[in-house]
């Protein structure tokens, strides 16, 4: 059994989901790659921002 940290779990989730989104939602390899990177940044970025928001609300 593995116990990843929350951030590791977010990064792994974002990596796999972005790969599938990139391949399935765009037509050319270049656009697939760019869309995959875009989705990855949005996944991880939004998780970090929401984490800080919840941290500040909880204080």
């Amino acid at each position, binding site marked *: 059994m*593995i116990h990843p940290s929350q951030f590791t779990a977010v990064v792994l989730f974002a*990596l796999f*989901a972005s*790969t599938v989104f990139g391949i*399935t939602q765009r*037509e050319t390899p270049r656009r697939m790659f760019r869309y995959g990177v875009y989705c990855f940044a949005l996944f991880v970025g939004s998780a970090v921002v929401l984490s800080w928001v919840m941290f500040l609300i909880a204080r």
Partner: protein
Amino acid sequence: MRYSQKRMATAATKNSAAPNTKPGFVYLPLIAGWLFPGAGHFLLRKWVRGALLSASIIGMFALGLAMKGKIYTGAQDVLDMLGFVGDLGNGLLFFVSRLLGLGADQVQVTTADYGTKFIVVAGLLNVIAAVDAHNLRTGRKPE
């Protein structure tokens, strides 16, 4: 002026999408892609795309199991039903895991909850990948 030219290019691109002229069963990539992640793209000779999809979906499913995620075996309430439908998207991975008794029966730690979500999302991503293979097969998505 530039806008109308762009629209014309888009229309031309749409018209150039290959019609469904290939012989064989149209739904084969869809069914194969559902049963085994990436198989639909392999059938269409999209080797790199198929390998990436396969690695992503199987990797996500395996990580979910490694985190002791739960595999839904039935539906007691609406949320369970949604989870069960998501798990079904994994195709053979789901059925083989059920047969082998993999996955946890109860979610007891936080990482197991992550694992459960990984397994459900792997199934949903697999459905997206299978539909993409079907769109490539029918010509709805240009190759």
